[in-house]
């Protein structure tokens, strides 16, 4: 049942499956599925039935045909595009690391640093701008806005730029000199680039892991628990002893249900009995108890259905026989049938008090049946 229901979309809440939804409609759909399964229908047939009524809309995973195919293909395409894009970007970044052209000459660098330190060096407008940028960078670093690694990295970049400007302004001679590889440059630049690449990779890995963890744990932790609350008693602290009942232990569920019923907590009782029925769909005591609750709530028809279901799996269920008689007699006015039902109940092994009570009720009903005009006569008196 759950397998079919969890593949169907609840028409009320839209984003929940029929199995997860607590809406009345979903409950009735679940009941319908159980009835159909019991009638010998195959799961595909039941699914097809719902599709014929609500269209493809009702399926949580659309059939891979026509427009539905898009939903199946898009995630794969997206993953491929994402992986491809990441690979391309990583490649570009790793190429950019060592790429920055020939590191500047030590002499040039020291001249730039002197300018940054504020020593009087004659500078053109372009050079002054580069020096200003370097000064700002150092200011940021000293203000703690940059890590040492980033600072060194950026400083190397800015100095290279400044050197290029310097070379351009000072003519070709010094420019050629500046282009000669300096011994101290590359060994310092490369580790920085490598560390950067690793950092990116680690960040990417972390993000992927984080996403996967959220995707896995979140749906688990917010699934609807007993009573339909997504957090259960975790936030409210309203832990009831019922929550400790093992969801598959039918006798314990029945006992808890009976207890809740005695304590007038019908909502909880219904929950226990329904869970018992999910484990054992034919369980007569749970059906009969649900019937009694329904009867008390004034749903005579559904109560009668519940009693009949209970009796179909156990024709001697005392609770169901008693309840069915009550519905027939009190709510539907079919007293003759009620008396017949109670007579079947009297054939069972009843406790003396119960037997006496049933006998008195039957006697009263018979009286009413025999003397139907009597009340009318009484009223004329």
């Amino acid at each position: 049942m759950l397998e079919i229901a969890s593949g169907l979309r609840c028409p009320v809440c839209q984003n929940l499956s029929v199995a997860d939804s607590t809406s009345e409609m979903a409950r009735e759909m679940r009941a319908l599925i159980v009835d159909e399964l019991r009638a010998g229908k195959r799961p595909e047939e039941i699914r097809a039935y719902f599709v014929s009524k609500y269209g493809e809309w009702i399926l949580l995973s659309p059939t891979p045909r026509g427009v539905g195919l898009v939903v199946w293909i898009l995630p794969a395409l997206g993953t491929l595009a994402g992986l491809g894009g990441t690979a391309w970007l990583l490649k570009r970044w790793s190429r950019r690391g060592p790429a920055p052209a020939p590191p500047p000459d030590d002499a040039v660098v020291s001249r730039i640093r002197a300018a940054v330190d504020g020593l009087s060096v004659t500078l053109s407008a372009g050079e002054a701008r580069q020096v200003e940028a370097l000064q700002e960078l150092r200011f940021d670093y000293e203000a703690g806005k940059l890590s040492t690694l980033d600072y060194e990295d950026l400083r190397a970049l800015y100095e290279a730029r400044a050197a290029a400007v310097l070379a351009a302004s000072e003519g070709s001679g010094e420019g050629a000199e500046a282009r000669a590889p300096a011994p101290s440059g590359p060994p310092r630049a490369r580790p920085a680039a490598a560390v950067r690449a690793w950092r990116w990779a680690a960040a990417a890995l972390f993000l992927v892991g984080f996403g996967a963890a959220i995707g896995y744990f979140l749906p688990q932790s917010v699934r609807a628990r007993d009573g339909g609350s997504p957090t259960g008693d975790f936030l409210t602290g309203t832990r009831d002893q019922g929550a400790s009942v093992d969801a598959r232990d039918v006798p314990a569920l029945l006992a808890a249900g009976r207890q809740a019923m005695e304590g007038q907590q019908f909502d909880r009782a219904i929950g226990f009995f329904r869970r018992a029925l999910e484990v054992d769909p034919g369980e007569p005591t749970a059906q009969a108890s649900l019937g009694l609750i329904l009867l008390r709530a004034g749903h005579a028809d559904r109560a009668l259905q519940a009693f009949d279901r209970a009796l179909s799996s156990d024709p001697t269920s005392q609770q169901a026989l008693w309840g069915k008689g009550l519905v027939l007699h009190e709510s539907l006015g079919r007293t003759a049938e009620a008396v017949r039902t109670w007579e079947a109940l009297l054939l069972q092994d009843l406790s003396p008090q119960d037997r006496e009570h049933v006998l008195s009720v039957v006697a009263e009903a018979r009286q009413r049946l025999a003397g139907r005009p009597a009340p009318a006569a009484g009223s004329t008196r």
Partner: protein
Amino acid sequence: MAWKRLALIFGVGLPLLAALAYGFTRDPREIPSPLIGRPAPPFKVRLTDGSEVKLADLRGKVVFLNFWASWCPPCRAEARLLEASWQRHRDQDVVFLGVNMQDREEAAREFLREFAISYPNGLDGGNRIAIDYGVWGIPETFFIDRNGRITYKQIGAFDGKTIHAKLEEARQGVISREEGKGEYRSIR
């Protein structure tokens, strides 16, 4: 570089935006019914007066099948209109049939009394009929022609003209391509 960026914007961004914009024009609750033009699912329902009616018994007549509940404001809003339309059409070969769903019997009877509804109304315990008709909002109305085919479906309350026009179409066996829509409530 510039043309690449433009291509990216127009090739990916715009279609994505268009798809999202289209999505916003749709009612996410709407479930298009596959039943229009098909034979109406057969059912048997117990009426409030205790008798039973089968859809098959109404073959040869145009059936106006209205799902409602006493707790639904649009149902209240259209109740008088439905009764008035019934009074207008009752002498013709038209049957109005209300199906009360997701409701308490007492509340349903009170509703019928309040609006002095005179056409037959059934009680759909367990909502099997509603599921059979793929009901997802309330009120929901199906027009069934003489041959038992669904010709039109309206989700939500009616305005005055539609009922008359669609009954006329159902009488001629004309099947509407689109569903009608008024104010509705989601079922529970």
